[in-house]
């Protein structure tokens, strides 16, 4: 988060998000959408989605960081991109996980053996993926194509 401020993108991204522009955050990029993170104590996140990020612990995942291929389970029937998640795995690599305050922001969860984490979020024009669609082979490519459709068409 500190780096984002240093390079000067923080205010611009926040302003664009608040103005209704579509924003997509991936991995750390999703975590930055929230208000704060244990990774950078005392530093404000973008605050485009309400909530905070916490460190993964062994009560959630037996091995930390969570690295590798894992499933993504839609939180609601017919939720965004849900059909693309079915019976597929995506690539994850992270040590922190997001906790939205509003459960309706949760698009999907992923099971880390001891507990679920939030693996994608949507709040109006703000979309986030904890996993890496861009590193998830053909499965990820299909998802990114749908994200483009979302970015162009929906209000």
């Amino acid at each position, binding site marked *: 988060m500190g780096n984002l401020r240093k390079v000067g993108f923080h205010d611009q991204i926040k302003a664009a998000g608040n103005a209704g522009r579509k924003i997509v955050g991936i991995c750390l990029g999703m975590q930055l959408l929230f208000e704060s993170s244990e990774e950078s104590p005392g530093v404000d996140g973008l605050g485009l989605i309400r909530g905070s990020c916490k460190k993964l612990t062994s009560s959630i995942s037996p*091995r930390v*960081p969570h690295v*590798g291929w894992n499933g993504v389970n839609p939180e609601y029937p017919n939720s965004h991109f849900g059909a693309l998640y079915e019976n597929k795995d995506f690539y994850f690599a992270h040590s922190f996980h997001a906790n939205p305050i509003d459960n309706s922001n949760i698009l999907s969860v992923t099971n880390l053996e001891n507990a679920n984490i939030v693996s994608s979020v949507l709040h109006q024009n703000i979309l986030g993926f904890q996993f890496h669609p861009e590193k998830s082979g053909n499965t990820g490519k299909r998802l990114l194509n749908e994200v483009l459709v979302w970015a162009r068409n929906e209000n």
Partner: protein
Amino acid sequence: MKIRIIPTILTDGLTVVKGEKFNNWRTVGNAVAHARLFSQRNVDELMFLDVNCRSNSTHVSVKMIEEFSSILEVPFSVGGGINTLEDARACIRSGAEKIVIGTAAVTNPQLISEIADEFGTQAVIVAVDVGQDLEDFVFTNSGKVISSVRAIDLITELEQLGAGEILLQSPERDGTLTGMNADAIRGALNLTNLPLIASSGVSSLSDFYSIAKLGVSAIAAGAIFQFTQTTPNQVRDYLKDSAIEVRRT
């Protein structure tokens, strides 16, 4: 968590080389062509290790990483001669998800923390080159130097230092297709909560199975994919049929 099968591509500049026991390198093809082929076959992940850099002071070629990055749609790591934060930056900025450090992790453990502070722990794989027993001192410099650090101590400290994964290698077995050091792998799993990538010596499908059963996060392999008919897809299918969870493509 689904077990990952990671082909290791040993390079010497732009050619793929194959060795035995970290020695006797010979050229077996073009690195980019190998990478493309694995990628087309839905490989889980790739690891590129520059063996030339291990014994020289230069780090892995940035140009080569950019080429891999442009053709790969799955994660990949690079290693070989990464000795400074600046080396790591160059690799990650060129498109590598993760970097592998070996010798420097023993001689300058602080480097692990520096890289993790800047890029996150998930960006740092530490290669631990073990002997027969975890009580033995680890090797550095491509298996040529015996350090004064015991594997058991290094593995225990890595999580605290900021490593994201451990690559457990056995120089004595690497490239020999003679089976993996299951005792060392089991021991290492008990010493750390970091994800473990087991490497060196895997020789058959049933070998993959028995090591997967130990609870490793990934198995890296070179020789079996270079010199036998076995493919990563075959390994994945075999493990799936044996009730081990693998990635659904």
